[in-house]
């Protein structure tokens, strides 16, 4: 069965089984490997993409349910908030191995879109689902606050 997906502004048809998680369509069929696999069980957030602007675990969304939505991956995320977050991530050297960071960035961008001046509590709520085994959390937190500050200026 073929599914029409809008990924990063491009409409494409994917001939895959209906139960294939969006994660594997994105990575193994569309070849967009910036989105990572960490758990396959909604436990780590490495696979976070935006579906109609909402941060979503792509390992949990089957392709048949993604039709008709606008999907944005780390490769396609643009705009002032995304650029600021990514710039801050480099300025503060947030990543260690970097494996979780596509998901962290997607989650941080979604948070700042919703809540331009998040508190520590807001950050905990929005990012507790994004595991970082390198424990870069202190810099993730600092990075979100710094991005908020730069975006306000």
């Amino acid at each position, binding site marked *: 069965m073929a599914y029409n997906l809008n990924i990063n502004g491009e409409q494409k048809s994917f001939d*895959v*089984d209906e139960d*294939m*998680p969006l994660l*594997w369509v994105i*990575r*193994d*069929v569309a*070849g967009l*490997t*910036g*989105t*990572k*696999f*960490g*758990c*396959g*069980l909604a*436990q*780590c957030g*490495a696979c976070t993409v935006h579906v109609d602007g909402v941060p979503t675990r792509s390992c949990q969304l089957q392709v048949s349910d993604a039709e008709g939505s606008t999907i944005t*991956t*780390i*490769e396609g995320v643009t705009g002032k908030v995304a650029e600021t*977050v*990514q710039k801050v*991530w*480099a*300025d503060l*050297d*947030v*990543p*260690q*191995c*970097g*494996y*979780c*960071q*596509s998901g962290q*960035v997607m989650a941080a961008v979604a948070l700042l879109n919703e809540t331009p001046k998040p508190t520590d509590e807001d*950050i*905990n709520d929005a*990012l*507790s689902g*994004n*595991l*970082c*085994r*390198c*424990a*870069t*959390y*202190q*810099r*993730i*937190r600092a990075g979100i606050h710094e991005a908020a500050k730069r975006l306000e200026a």
Partner: protein
Amino acid sequence: MLNKIIPELNPAKIATSRRGFLLGASAVAGGLMVGMRAAPASAASDTAVEPANPLAGYIHIAPDNSVTILSSQFDMGQGPYHGLATLVVEELGADWSQIDVKGAAGNTKLYGNILWGGAVQGTGGSTSIATSFDRYRQAGAAAREMLIAAAADTWSVPASQVSVSGGKLTDTSGNSATFGDMAAKAAAMALPTEVKLKDPADWTQIGNEKLRRFDSAAKANGTHDFTIDVKLDGLLTAVVAHPPKFGAKVKSFDAAEALKVRGVTDVVEIPRGIAVVGEHMWAAIKGREALTVEWDEAQAETRGSAEIMAEYKAKAGEAQQATARTEGDAAAALSSAAKVIEATYEFPYLAHAAMEPLNAVARRNADGTLEVWGGHQIPDVYQGISAKIAGVKPEQVTMHVMKTGGGFGRRAVADGDVVAEAVSVARAIDYKAPVKVQWTREDDMRGGRYRPAYVHSFKAGLDKDNNLVAWHNHIVGQSIVSGTPFEGLIKDGVDGTSVEGASNIPYGIQNINVGLTTTDVKVPVLWWRAVGSTHTAYAVESFLDEVIAEIGADPYAYRMELLKDHPRHAAVLKLAADKAGWTTPAPEGRFRGLAVHESFSSVVAHIAEISMDNGTPIVHKVTVAVDCGIAVNPDTIKAQMEGGTGFGLGSILAEELTLVNGEVEQGNYDTYTPLRIDAMPQVDVHIVPSANKPTGVGEPGVPSIGPAVANAIAAAGGRRIRVLPMSKSMGT
């Protein structure tokens, strides 16, 4: 850790090693001491020592002016790529915009780990900067000399008139060229016989706090490639059905249903299980779900972790098998002590649980050569293993060392597990396509190679004046190196990885006895970030705190007293205490605990400030002091201390890998639970200024946070937590 092991490897046991794999340490060290001269190819045949061309082996300068540094060290996030680049940029005079770093392999004499005697290329024991400090600075300096020589020759000016800065060559008469312009000519210039390294006073890169990692931007925009992202024409993906119990084997399997799954191309048996190969990961996963395998469990480990622990506890009360350290007469001192304090500590199995589940990619080319991509932490060993499986010579195998999503020790395995699987699957499908073996989270969690479970029993003796005069520590648990090619390391029945951090306690106690009883369990175990120190630091520093409480002394002041002969430890502890304000009272409702520990030649102290919430600790603030010699990349050191603190904190709070009837209970991050952002404290890191050679930071940030938190809980009037993880016995 490995730095202690590798030089003692028993050559005869490494059947799969490449020729010349094991070198005498002295030959290598001697070779490197003459600057750019590389080690001889083997200790036996050290004829002429060929100088290594830095522009061939360590630094590649392309005509487009890009500078690629070939790293001997594997980057799993701890930052050696940036560290090595810093050393080269410092001496070469390159501009950071030119720089990229790639993993290198296949030439032990260039890339062998000097801290391991140069015998094998590898990353571990927090040695990356230590092994590279001279080597990569010398490479950078020699390359600079060669670029200068090329420019001088081209412009017909004396070399003394050519200068280098920001990736450009200029002379006093107005000539100028990029590195790229001169690269080809420079590579053919005579190698400098001697190079002069910069005076530390002139360093602009080394020790520069403002320097940022060159690879952070790529990690924030998804373009940093990991093994899971390797793209090759026709690449297939395989998942492997492993035995549910350690030591079990395949009896029979039925692939019929699996082969019906859309996208599944092959189902093949390999030595480690049954591989289901598909066009993509989802096909392989679904294929494996449809597969039927019968296992032969005759040789399998069938005990659960509770039984294993009970056995360890019983053994801890019996006589120790071997003695790791003895000073004075602890037994006599204990029997004549005015007071004896006793305690037993229990540590569970732990999983590495790196975010990128294990994987590797193998391809055989038309000319019979093999290429293997992966997180090759010990590429020379994996090259030998791959060659043996594929039936080719080691030099026909190219190892592509990828960056990985974490590692924490899991990718340094003597049998090459996932690497061997990738080559085995490629072979089993007749090399018809390149294949990636990708473990799922559950495969990774249940794949063994855990931090071993341990029990520590302690006895401390106080004399009638309340002085600590006797210390006895008996450790019970599995050996990491036993049954592996590294087992030559076991000396007089003691595996150093079981006792490190306990046998070398720095405290001035007259009578010390540290003993070990090694157990026989078939659960595969491995080094886990900070290895022995992951349990010894907790046990020693918690128990010492108990003793100090019994004495009624201040935990800081008493330790300082015991550290009189160890000024380095004392200085680190003092820096942490000063920065945390130890001598001033903690804020209302807050409590502090501290610990200090040496691992991998670095010394780290942690001071944790906590509050208690319904019997559960909340860690608010952590002060870290570290002495790791010269701080090459201060910000990376801070990052490693922050991350190590979070990693260590998560493990003592709530990580535990348990088995029931030989089967691992946890499969994913819902049941095996590393630290999340809401539990991450503020971590302030302070580096002790030092002019000593750099030591490691990848692991030493882990050990002392646990006991610091445990001691803070006790300070808050809570219980001594002697069974980990804390979640087992606390509010949650």
